[in-house]
């Protein structure tokens, strides 16, 4: 007697919203307008090795360049819709606190964003066979930071428990086309980055990012093998993902001639 995918709720095709609150109409509109313009013209994004993202079943994609105002998860989702052989859809995953703010609570969920809650992500990955994307800050990829951040991320833990592949994706050019000139300390140990597009205006500051050339490279998936030790496996995979992202990003940056021109 298990809570399996065969007992998921019936899909009411005449509804605009799905059970997660995503609006089909709004998602399609955003995809054709905002994300299309960002993908093709503003960031001139390129997705390498899209076939490494599984063609079926759930998988967790971890991309660097994340942050509260970063568009990288949405950009990767758009790239997969454009370039993946199966044109797979992916759900960006955000901090639950962000989704608890008035306005964002509705707008982000309508756009398909889900909260990073282990139970919810596990259901998406294991039962609904969805792709889920989380972003990690590039400056938090060193080993000490990973133990406190990525290794404790509820989405990664959910992926380990669900036994689905974890796919690292390197993003070059997403978080370094705007120079951060200072970081304003905020309560709770947070920092507000002040770049050329200052002041950062929440998610609106994404629009203040300068145009650039963004390369997204999909690395080989890692299949978890927890064998009862989910915590240890989560830490191991978090470190493995972070190191691979770090090294691959360094290689990609070294090979780059310009931040804005290919």
């Amino acid at each position, binding site marked *: 007697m298990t809570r*399996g995918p065969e007992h998921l709720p019936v899909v009411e095709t005449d509804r605009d919203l799905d*059970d997660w*609150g995503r609006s089909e109409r709004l998602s399609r509109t955003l995809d054709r307008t905002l994300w299309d313009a960002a993908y093709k013209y503003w960031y001139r994004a390129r997705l390498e090795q899209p076939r490494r993202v599984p063609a079926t079943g759930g998988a967790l994609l971890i991309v660097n360049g994340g942050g509260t105002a970063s568009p990288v998860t949405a950009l990767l989702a758009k790239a997969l819709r454009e370039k993946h052989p199966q044109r797979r859809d992916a759900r960006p995953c955000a901090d639950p606190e962000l989704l608890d703010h008035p306005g964002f609570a509705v707008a982000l969920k309508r756009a398909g964003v*889900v909260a990073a809650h282990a139970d919810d992500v596990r259901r998406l990955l294991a039962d609904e066979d969805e792709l889920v994307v989380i972003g990690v800050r590039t400056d938090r990829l060193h080993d000490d930071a990973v133990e406190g951040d990525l290794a404790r991320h509820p989405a990664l833990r959910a992926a380990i428990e669900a036994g689905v592949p974890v796919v690292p994706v390197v993003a070059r050019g997403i978080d370094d086309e705007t120079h951060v000139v200072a970081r304003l300390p905020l309560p709770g140990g947070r920092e507000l980055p002040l770049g050329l597009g200052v002041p950062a205006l929440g998610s609106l500051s994404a629009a203040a990012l300068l145009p650039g050339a963004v390369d997204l490279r999909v690395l080989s998936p890692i299949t978890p093998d927890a064998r009862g030790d989910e915590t240890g496996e989560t830490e191991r995979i978090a470190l493995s993902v972070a190191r691979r992202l770090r090294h691959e990003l360094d290689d990609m940056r070294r090979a780059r001639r310009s931040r804005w021109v290919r």
Partner: protein
Amino acid sequence: MTDRTATGQRVLVTAAASRIGGLIVAALESDPAIETIIAVDAEAPPAPFQRAEFVRLRDHYAQLARVAAGAAIDVVVDVRAAAALAPLDHAALVDLSDGSDRILDLCGDPEGGVRRLVVLSSTHRYGWDSDLPRFVTEQTPLASREGGSPLLRALAELESRAQAVAAGRDELGLAVLRTADPVGPAGAGLLQALDLLPLFPTVLGFDPPVQVVHEDDLARAAAHVVVAGLDGEYLVAADGTLALTEALRALGVTHAPVLPPWGTGLLSRLLHRTGLRFTQDIAGLLRHGRGIDNRKLKATGFAYRSTTREALATVVPGRRRRLALSAGSVPADNAYDADVEAFLRYSPSAQRPEVPAADEQRHGIAALDADALLALLPSLDADALRALRAHEQAGPRRVRLIAEIDLVLAER
């Protein structure tokens, strides 16, 4: 899952005079695996039962043990919380603990014959914390009763006391059904709390998830758990998680985001101090909402007939609901009367009508699904409605259909 599906279960249902209790009794009556149904409540039911026997128990079920022993009851279904929640009866919720003493004494008695207790609780037991997942499951940690709303505290006490009794008696099986707000003519739970206002106020910048269950599905779920002999915790909610605005649209309620996004908790506590009921839970509904993962019960073979949207579409507007719940909504010729029931059931002079076999019941208009008939009711004229009512009364006796016909007739 324990194998207790052998025929011949003898079931006692509390709060049987409530609408939800009556529906559960009716669902149990339709299952031949249930040998005997004893329906108890402090008030008389609005209409007689088909097969169940009703016993009126006063003084917080003071004589429950005698009735249960006399009827050799082996399963007790405690419906009181669900019955109080559907019409948002605060007094009944506060009163739960008094009746619980007698019910739990009965179930905990090692010499007693009760071997299973089925408690209908509510998903409000999870509280409204913003840390909850979008879909709560049976494994989701329950909210602490400290600082919780009165509703949460009442449910916590109901469940914890039942669990304590089950823990103290190995042979007692316990099933806890946490149900979403049941909707139907009896009400729509928290969604109905504000329907006396000309405008349903929502919180600016939020559109939380809402999930309910149709009262018929709730009754069938309770009967399923009894008949299948299921133990453990189960969440009962219809398929489909709507946004609050979607749900209000389905209810035909005018709404507007007039509440500020900050300070709803403080405002609700202040309103609670002024005597308004359920304010903390209403604030939670408007601010956070709750989705429910209903798959564990479905995995046992239970199938819901209505989605959340379909269930909300059957909710009658406030004026008709008040009509449905008012005294006299059941015609006098069909109202429950203890003396008449005693005569019809036990007098040697009374000729008891043959109850048609299940196969026979499915011919003619009885073969039509109740939902299909409900959709047709508004298009029928008064004579046709009366004829249909007489037919239902003489044949299938579907309580929900008869009640709806009465409502439509009363409106004309």
